[in-house]
């Protein structure tokens, strides 16, 4: 492993950073939509990501479907899983809360419910698919060579797909009335109820949308990394980290945070080895000393 920086290596590291960064961004966007829409800190989010990768494996590798089709299917399947888990768990939990329930009580109980969900999902995935690592043969095995730079096409496809999903999400959130409803609910659900909208199904939609994004992230990354039942636990810490750095409730912050953490981890692993993660985590704490609400977030509630 070359320790000195050649231009080829530099470009390769940038591409790696963009790849993992775009996956983090998709994950955090999903987590953020759930957090702000339904006020649930979803610990099961990483497990939904792992499940997305497994469903991608099922459709693409086992059933030999088209790549784009199986990606869309894994997103839809996870949105369904998310909607069902909202209806089965969080909808009942919400009815338990009364006016006098404090904010911290609601937050704790919904987070703990998502931990229960995470345990069930994780072990369920493990029982269904086994403990062995699975891999998907990348549909884009070509490697682009420009000078001494070698970039695998599948990484570029991942970046392209993530950008496309982000743009679609942006258009949905800011150009359609449905997106307006979602944003309104995350701002003030009671005001939305007063306008005569049944917020219950909007909450379901929020959770389904967030879960679907996690599923898409898992499906997109599946051809690049091996699929293991523990992949969800590994990514959830970094997802929380990006959420914190970017600031809760800021899309621009999320994108900036995802790219920043992607760059730091990509370059860190190359030059610092296994200490990279520790240094990045410490850096986040330093950022929080100076900007408690995150890079671009509003001050925390």
């Amino acid at each position, binding site marked *: 492993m070359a320790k000195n920086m050649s231009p080829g290596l530099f470009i390769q590291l940038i591409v790696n950073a963009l790849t993992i960064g775009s996956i983090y961004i998709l994950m955090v966007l999903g987590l953020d939509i759930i957090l702000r829409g339904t006020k649930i800190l979803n610990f099961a989010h990483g497990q939904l990501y792992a499940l997305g990768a497994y469903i991608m494996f099922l459709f693409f590798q086992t059933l030999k479907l088209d790549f784009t089709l199986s990606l869309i299917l894994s997103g839809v399947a996870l949105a369904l899983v998310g909607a069902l888990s909202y209806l089965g768990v969080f909808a009942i*939990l919400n009815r*338990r809360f009364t006016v006098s329930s404090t904010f911290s009580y609601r937050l*704790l109980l919904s987070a703990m419910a998502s*931990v229960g969900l995470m345990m069930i999902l994780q072990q369920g995935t493990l029982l269904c698919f086994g403990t062995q690592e699975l891999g998907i043969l990348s549909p884009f095995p070509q490697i682009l060579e420009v000078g001494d730079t070698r970039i695998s096409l599948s990484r570029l496809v991942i970046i392209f797909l993530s950008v496309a999903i982000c743009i679609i999400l942006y258009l949905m959130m800011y150009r359609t009335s449905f997106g307006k409803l979602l944003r309104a609910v995350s701002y003030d659900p009671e005001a939305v109820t007063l306008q005569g909208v049944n917020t219950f199904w909007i909450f379901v939609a929020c959770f389904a949308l967030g879960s679907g994004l996690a599923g898409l992230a898992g499906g997109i990354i599946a051809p690049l990394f091996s699929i293991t039942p523990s992949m969800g636990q590994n990514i959830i810490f970094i997802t929380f980290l990006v959420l914190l750095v970017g600031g809760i409730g800021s899309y621009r912050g999320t994108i900036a945070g995802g790219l920043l953490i992607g760059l730091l981890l990509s370059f860190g692993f190359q030059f610092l080895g296994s200490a990279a993660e*520790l240094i990045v*985590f410490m850096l986040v*704490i330093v950022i929080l000393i100076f900007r*408690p609400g995150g890079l671009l977030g509003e001050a925390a509630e």
Partner: protein
Amino acid sequence: MKLPNSLKTDRVTRYKWIAIIIVLIALIVLPLCIESNYIKHLLIMACIGAILGMTFSLLFSSGLITLGAAAFYAVGAYSSTVLVMNAGLSFWAALPLTLVFTAILALGFGAVFVRNAGVAFVIITLIFAQVVVLAAAQADFLGGWGGIMGIPRPNPVGTVNFAAKTDYYYLILAMLLLVVLIYNALYSSRIGRAWRAIKLSPKLAGTLGINEYRYRLLAFVIGSTTAALAGCFYAHYSQNITPGAFGGWLSIYVQLYAVLGGLEFYILGPAIGAVVMTFVPEYLRIVKEWEPIITGVILLVVILFFPGGILGTLKNPPALSLNKFHSLYNRLVTGKKRDSNS
């Protein structure tokens, strides 16, 4: 005037005293009736878990949800180990030094963390727990991922040398009782009332002249120092520590103790929850790979249908009737609001 439950301080009535004495005698006699070393091991781990759960409840009583209990638990375990093994101090000298060290550390980090309330605080403490694990794994003098082996048991006091599990059980039980006494005194003092006021409404507490930041920071420091105490006793009990043992998910189990036992009960709740969560998964090992699923389902059932936890449900037993299920069905499916009679 009737105060809301969360503002009432628990008055220890005469019957409660009798109950407390019976429980104490039971706890003291218990290890003498048990032959199995395995059960004694679980009892010791349950006591350590109970102390950790109480630190969570302490912070929760001021409205903070911490996932960082494991972080200071690890700090306590590692610093006591280093003081005993590298600096050659006796356990009883290392213990207060560890507590002071952790308190200073908690004050420094807490000053940054406590500024963020709500969701951000949850995530920061979770990440901090992960940072501590990664840092311990990177430091060579702490043994890296392999950890430290051969930590001695606490130095003998008189003729008791703490080598037997029964002796260690009594030691940890004494520590648990000490923590219970201190916490009980805190909860019934002005400080405890200030914490509960902040939890109920930070803004209202502020208008009453309670400095939210300072009181929360105080809760953070006390909670973290207690977690370090538990860590100390864990390290010298298990005699080897690895960074993996303090991973971020440990904190989530600590939360579980408090939720399962009952969030309204700051002392008894985590204690009962820790005992249940230590013993139940061990016996569920029979069903092997289904164990996490069953634990998850139990957790969900408790949260969804008995949100008061074990103690809360015992205190206010739910009136189960067909009518209630019918109205639940109505509420969920037709989206109708709560009936006026429920």
